[in-house]
């Protein structure tokens, strides 16, 4: 492996020492004065303090959003709403590098990813949905579809700015106002986005940002919102579905996954190996649609595994702000211990563990890329979402067996298929119980392409024409 000199990103964003809640267009502290710290997971140092929203703050934010919906955002023409969203997209592009660095510092993911994926894709989501704002009657959802009103949104820590964009852009395009809770470990880019809304001149109350933990989220779900949109764990999604039962609140849920990446014996092996590596090690495996189960046809299993391990040996784990880093820090100590615990069950249940011999930084939260072989379907590492850089390898003999194993999970978010044979791709894609199927590629996302899962991966889609349904009264 080549030794690379450090290549740290030089831009430093303007991170304030303290952020308030963003309610009605202004930063304010919590009613009860609660505050928490956000930590850089690659150094374990506190980056800033931020107000923690309680029930009273949630009520205030929902009232501000309601007022904004009734007085300004609801009555505004779609074309004008769209222009605000275009403006936000442009500002995000202008400040792309600052957002990328801030995201890497608060989240731990490599700058290569925030710079080339998270931030540009977030800007694209605003640009894409901006164009829908005055064309909703062409979306196939009725002649004159109406907004729902005030939307409560709760997002995870794995793609903080991008998940914000997935939630806020379609909601605003459809004429709703929002109250969004970023994840407790990654509120930074949401707060910078609040500043950007001020700069864009977005009317007060259209976007409200409430940092906090689980209690803030459940207060938001229980508040007087018209709709709840959630991305996160299946356990919390289930609790939200129960909490809104019997109410008029509409709900969409984008939950966990345990995706299979199926490599057939006629696959382009080098490309497949690249795709498998990307599928599980992108964003440290903190991806709900990660290809965390490799299903490889027995006849090519040895060859695929050999090349896979050789490729994983070359991954660079370390400083998220180094432009050469492939795998950054695990987002939190809590997540690191969860990954460790599940990985230990894999060893305990008899799977063979392999890790490359790479050095890890002394401070911060790190986990080596890990490949389990000899995995049985009943093992926890084959059933449960690890949400870390851990791949479970299983083998199959026939295409039917591959499909059966791929579908043998309560989840149904994504799947991958690798073969040079077109008819086999379509055959497999039709049978895979997943909302997104990547064939001879993996982890591709686009504002124009609907994303979301089946079964216990939730319901509703984000992106594309189909994603608008979640934010319209249809």
């Amino acid at each position: 492996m080549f030794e690379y000199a450090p290549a740290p990103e030089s831009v430093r964003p303007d991170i304030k020492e303290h952020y308030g809640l963003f309610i009605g267009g202004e930063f304010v502290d919590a009613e009860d004065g609660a505050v928490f710290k956000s930590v850089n997971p690659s150094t374990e140092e506190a980056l800033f303090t931020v107000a923690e929203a309680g029930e009273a703050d949630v009520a205030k934010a929902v009232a501000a959003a309601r007022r904004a919906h009734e007085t300004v955002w609801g009555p505004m023409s779609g074309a004008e709403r769209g222009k605000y969203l275009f403006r936000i997209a442009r500002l995000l592009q202008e400040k792309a590098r600052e957002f990328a660095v801030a995201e890497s510092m608060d989240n731990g993911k490599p700058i290569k990813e925030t710079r080339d994926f998270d931030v540009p894709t977030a800007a694209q989501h605003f640009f894409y949905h901006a164009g829908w704002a005055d064309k909703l009657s062409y979306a196939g959802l009725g002649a004159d579809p109406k907004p729902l009103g005030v939307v409560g949104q709760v997002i995870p820590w794995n793609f903080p700015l991008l998940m914000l964009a997935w939630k806020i852009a379609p909601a605003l395009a459809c004429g709703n106002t929002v109250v969004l809770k970023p994840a407790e470990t990654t509120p930074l880019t949401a707060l910078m986005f609040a500043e950007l809304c001020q700069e864009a001149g977005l009317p007060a109350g259209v976007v409200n940002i409430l940092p906090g933990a689980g209690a803030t989220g459940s207060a938001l779900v229980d508040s007087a919102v018209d709709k709840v949109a959630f991305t996160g764990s299946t356990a919390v999604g289930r609790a939200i579905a129960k909490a809104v039962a019997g109410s008029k609140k509409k709900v969409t849920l984008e939950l966990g996954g345990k995706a299979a990446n199926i490599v057939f014996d006629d696959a382009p092996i080098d490309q497949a190996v690249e795709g498998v590596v990307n599928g599980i090690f992108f964003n440290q495996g903190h991806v709900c649609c990660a290809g965390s189960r490799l299903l490889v046809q027995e006849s090519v299993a040895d060859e695929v595994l050999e090349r896979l391990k050789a490729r994983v040996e070359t991954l660079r784990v370390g400083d998220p702000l180094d432009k050469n880093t492939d795998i950054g820090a695990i987002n939190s100590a809590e997540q690191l211990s969860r990954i460790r615990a599940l990985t230990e069950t894999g060893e305990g249940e008899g799977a063979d563990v392999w890790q490359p011999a790479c050095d890890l930084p002394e401070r911060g939260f790190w986990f080596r890329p890990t490949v389990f072989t000899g995995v049985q379907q009943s093992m926890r590492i084959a059933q449960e979402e690890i949400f870390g850089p851990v791949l479970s390898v299983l083998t199959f003999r026939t295409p039917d067996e591959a499909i059966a194993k791929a579908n043998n999970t309560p989840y149904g978010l994504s799947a991958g298929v690798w073969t040079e044979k077109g008819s086999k791709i379509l055959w497999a894609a039709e049978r895979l119980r997943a909302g997104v199927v990547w064939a001879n590629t993996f982890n591709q996302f686009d504002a124009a392409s609907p994303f979301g899962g089946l079964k216990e991966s939730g319901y509703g889609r984000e992106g594309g024409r189909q994603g608008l349904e979640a934010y319209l009264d249809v």
Partner: protein
Amino acid sequence: MSEHERLRVKKTYKLYVGGKFPRSESGRSYPVSSPDGTELANAALASRKDARDAVAAARKAQRPWAGQTAYLRGQILYRAAEMLEGRAGQFAEELADATGADPREALGTVEQAIDRLVHYAGWTDKYTSVLGGANPVGGPYFNHTTPEPLGVVAVVAPQDDPLLGLIEAFAPAIATGNTAVVLASEAKPLPALSLGEVLATSDLPGGVVNLLSGKVSEVAPHLASHADVNGLDLGGVADAGLAAELEAAAAETLKVVRRPGRDGGALDLLRQWTEYKTVWHPAGMAAGAGGAY
């Protein structure tokens, strides 16, 4: 030779499960009367076991049904309309008995029901192109989205509209390749149970539609909590408290739920019981695969 009126052969109203007409496994039945109190018949009183059998039959039938061509599914739904048309008089009578409606009004309702079947027969090979499509992503990829059936849909059919309402509830679900377990109107189940005879003679594979009669409060909770049910239509649940309980039970396995009182046209119903699947593939030789690494 003594003269007497011929003894009429009365029908035993049984369940329709997996293409067969079983009695309730529990051996129970309950008396069904018209609104004026006239006793009409005894209907099978479905149990938890019957609900589970119906879900199993629906699950078994789902994959083959969804795998049929849309053209064939359309022809089978149309065939059901043909069969119902041929027996419109019988259904008008049963409907008039069940609801107390004027017989001519009841015939009008049966005709509407026939026309709804024809309507959905025509949807089977169109909703995919109406709801799905190609997505212009910002990269060299072929990307398209198609609606696919959710799987098994459990329907609590409307209580006061025992034939037309019931057909309106399950037809869009099966048109899109789902299979259905339908709990008929509790007090007016007879037209629905007779509809089983129509479906059984329409080339509709056994298990695609399963019809149960019984108590909503007894059967619906088993359907709501059954892990192999993917969608739940609460249209016929009149008690708001029970509807909330059923929705909460359905949340355990994250079923798609249609709440009571929701209006919507055919396209809304077709969308309700489908899930979008999006498939990506590189386009162009350079696209290769991989990604960032």
